């Protein structure tokens, strides 16, 4: 059993008058946050949760729009989880989605501001990675980096420090949702808390993470650099 969670609950003053980028439409009329999961092996995923903020939902009628997108893309097991309050971190958004939906088993967390393809998600802890040198334009400060040993085990993950030519491509697998929540509870007082911190704390406790070498990476957060 695998559950896909797409956290889109970041609060930002800018979003009071501007639709958050993941909810905008591409040229084909697909929401970017929906397009963000299109390259995943969706046949292997049981349920999909898009986690949004109530304030954004009320302002932009997002749940209706997302439901239309799900129908159009034939995503019959996709749901919208609406959080009443903004969260302090992506990790908190995920933990609250797990709690509110009683999710157990393996979770795949996918950032809503990028796209990649991969054929298979194995039932284990993992981090999606992509080689830096394959990007035409790089904004190194907005990435986390993943060190991998010769046998393809993750040995390190760190925010904004180039310790490897692989960067984290915005996909994270945790083989046990409840274990993720336990680590979140342990670390929730820290700020700013990133998913990379949770993964690093798990690595220190000898939890094994494997890299998922993805393809066709597109970073929509970089679109401003292309324009």
């Amino acid at each position, binding site marked *: 059993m695998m559950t896909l969670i797409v956290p889109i609950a970041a609060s930002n003053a800018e979003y009071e008058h501007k639709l958050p980028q993941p909810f905008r439409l591409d040229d084909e009329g697909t929401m970017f946050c929906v397009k963000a999961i299109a390259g995943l092996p969706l046949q292997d995923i049981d349920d999909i949760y898009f986690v949004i903020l109530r304030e954004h939902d009320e302002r932009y009628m997002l749940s209706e729009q997302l439901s239309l997108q799900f129908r159009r893309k034939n995503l019959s097991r996709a749901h919208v989880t609406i959080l009443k309050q903004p969260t302090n971190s992506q990790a908190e958004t995920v933990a609250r989605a797990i709690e509110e939906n009683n999710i157990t088993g393996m979770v795949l967390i996918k950032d809503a501001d990028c796209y990649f393809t991969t054929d298979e998600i194995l039932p284990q802890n993992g981090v999606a990675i992509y080689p830096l040198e394959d990007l035409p334009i790089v904004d190194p400060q907005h990435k986390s980096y993943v*060190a991998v040993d010769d046998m393809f085990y993750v*040995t*390190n993950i*760190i*925010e*904004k*420090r180039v*310790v490897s030519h692989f960067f984290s491509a915005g996909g994270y697998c945790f083989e046990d949702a409840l274990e993720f929540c336990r680590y979140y509870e342990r*670390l929730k007082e*820290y*700020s*700013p*808390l*990133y998913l990379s*911190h949770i993964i*690093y*704390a798990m*690595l*220190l*406790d*000898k939890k094994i993470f494997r890299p998922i070498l993805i393809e066709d990476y597109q970073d929509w957060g970089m679109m401003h650099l292309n324009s």
Partner: protein
Amino acid sequence: MKLDIQGHSGCEIVIVHEDNDLFIHKSTHDSGYVPRLVNQANKQIAASKIEYQNIRVPKVFEVEQNDTSATIKMEYIYSRNYVEHFEQAGFEQIKYLIGAIKYFIDLEINNSRMETVPSHILTDKMADVARKVEKNVHLKDDAEAQELVRRSSAVMDQVGNMVLPVGMCHGDLTFSNILFNGNNYYLIDFLDSFIESPLLDIVKIRQDTSYLWSTLMYNKPFDKVRLSIISEKIDVAIDEYFSGRYQWYRDYYMPLQLMNFLRILQYGHDDKVISYLKKVISSQLDFINNTKNI
């Protein structure tokens, strides 16, 4: 060629380029500090003769001294500080460091003898702290600091004679006195300790892992969350390891950690640091009192 760098102890530290090698010249022109610096050099020389696996000690090549000054010439180590090391360290490097710390302190314990440290060593030191706090212009009118000293004195009065391993001790084993070179760890700035016990080294290393003391002094930007996660990991590993093995650790770690922070407080002059120290000392006193009541 000479390059001046900043030291922590008030000594002048100069990097000297001679015959295609770099050396550190550490010197003092304070006649009162001369014997202390020479003692440090001797302690470092003695420590450098022991094999420690991943732990290294920079070689001392010369010690020059007269009545008014002293200079130590020692090996220059290409290294990174602990924050930069932790910023880039994979989980396995943290594991090596934990192993090295345990190994080093175990070796110190094995080179020490169990001795009775008379109760007056601690109570005299406490009286000295109380005098220095009383004279410190930043603390003498601070009612909270005075109350903490009073409560601490009561704790120290109750400790009594301590049976501890005595004989070998770095004296100031904080992260800021460890140079990181890959998986080799170079210990610098050896100091005399008021009790030459390995327990004092555990106290000092946990000053950083449990209380993040050296991080307070670090001015460059760094990932505080990551450093806290790593520090907690190391702290729990050290605490579990030694508390599982040694009664003296379980009995005396906390009073000696309290004394350690009191000895920092007595020289406090920065409001932010004093406030932090008072918070730590207060939490330590609460912990000691709560443990006693169980």
